[in-house]
């Protein structure tokens, strides 16, 4: 097993390359459908990255909900509205906006490297390594146990959030029809 540590490493670089490429394509593509499909590819490979980090449940949810549901919604809306490809020519690149991007990048580099160096000190008690997670009954089990004990309130509030989203969507999307009917 020792001799094969290069396999995950190689895969990591390949997957990251694909993620970056598809992220750029999402932003740069003229046609919204192209963007949406690259978004699916992006989300799929991010899920692969999660699986590599032993977060199998999160990876499955990423594909199920993100790639398989949220982007479907985007595709539906693009098809319903019959959007044409954008003209990308008129895009101005002001100094301020470039500066924002640069500052964000710098901020990430600083915070990221700081975190990476000090992170081991942040390790909290009651932690679980990947071997320990396997012993405890697998990733799904551990996530579920933690979710329904420590994260009980956020979980219940999430349902309220979903309820609000349902009501809001129906109200906004159905509004016009009612006006025309009366």
């Amino acid at each position, binding site marked *: 097993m020792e001799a094969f540590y290069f396999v995950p490493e190689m*895969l990591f670089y390949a997957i990251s390359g694909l993620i970056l490429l598809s992220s750029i394509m999402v932003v740069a593509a003229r046609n919204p459908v192209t963007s949406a499909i690259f978004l699916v590819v992006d989300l799929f490979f991010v899920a692969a990255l999660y699986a590599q980090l*032993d977060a199998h449940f999160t990876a499955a949810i990423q594909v199920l909900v993100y790639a398989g549901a949220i982007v479907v*919604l985007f595709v539906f809306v693009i098809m319903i509205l019959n959007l044409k490809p954008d003209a990308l020519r008129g895009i101005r690149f002001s100094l301020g906006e470039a500066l924002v991007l640069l500052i964000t990048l710098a901020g990430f580099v600083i915070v990221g490297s700081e975190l990476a160096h000090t992170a081991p000190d942040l390790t909290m008690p009651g932690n679980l390594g990947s071997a320990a997670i396997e012993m405890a009954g697998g990733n799904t*089990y551990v996530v579920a*146990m933690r979710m329904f004990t420590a994260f*009980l309130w956020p979980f219940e509030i999430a*349902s309220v959030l979903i309820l609000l*989203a*349902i009501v809001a969507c129906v109200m906004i999307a159905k509004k016009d029809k009612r006006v025309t009917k009366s």
Partner: protein
Amino acid sequence: MNPYIPVIIVLIFGVVLGGILSGLAAFLGPKKYSREKMDPYECGVPKVTAGSEKMSVKFYLTAILFILFDIETVFLYLWARTFKELGWLGIIEIAVFVLILVVGYIYVVRRGALEWD
């Protein structure tokens, strides 16, 4: 072996297989161009309007409800996996969660968002 490695290999294979099937025709079949033939078939008669039109917003409402209930299903799976360990507490937690969503479901049905006509 972490299962994502075989999954990625299978994925590559599936894409290649789909690509081969998709590309096979281009190499093997004859190619004779004619203006008429390349017209979209539609329903057999020459087309009158452009190839795509605006579609009903119903599809969009369906997709939204799908997402929201999909998330609900995911949380239900998470609870089902630890059903034994959580006991009655887990049932109460999930009951509150489901009840809140059932309120949303009833609202949607009442507003007629699920009526197709």
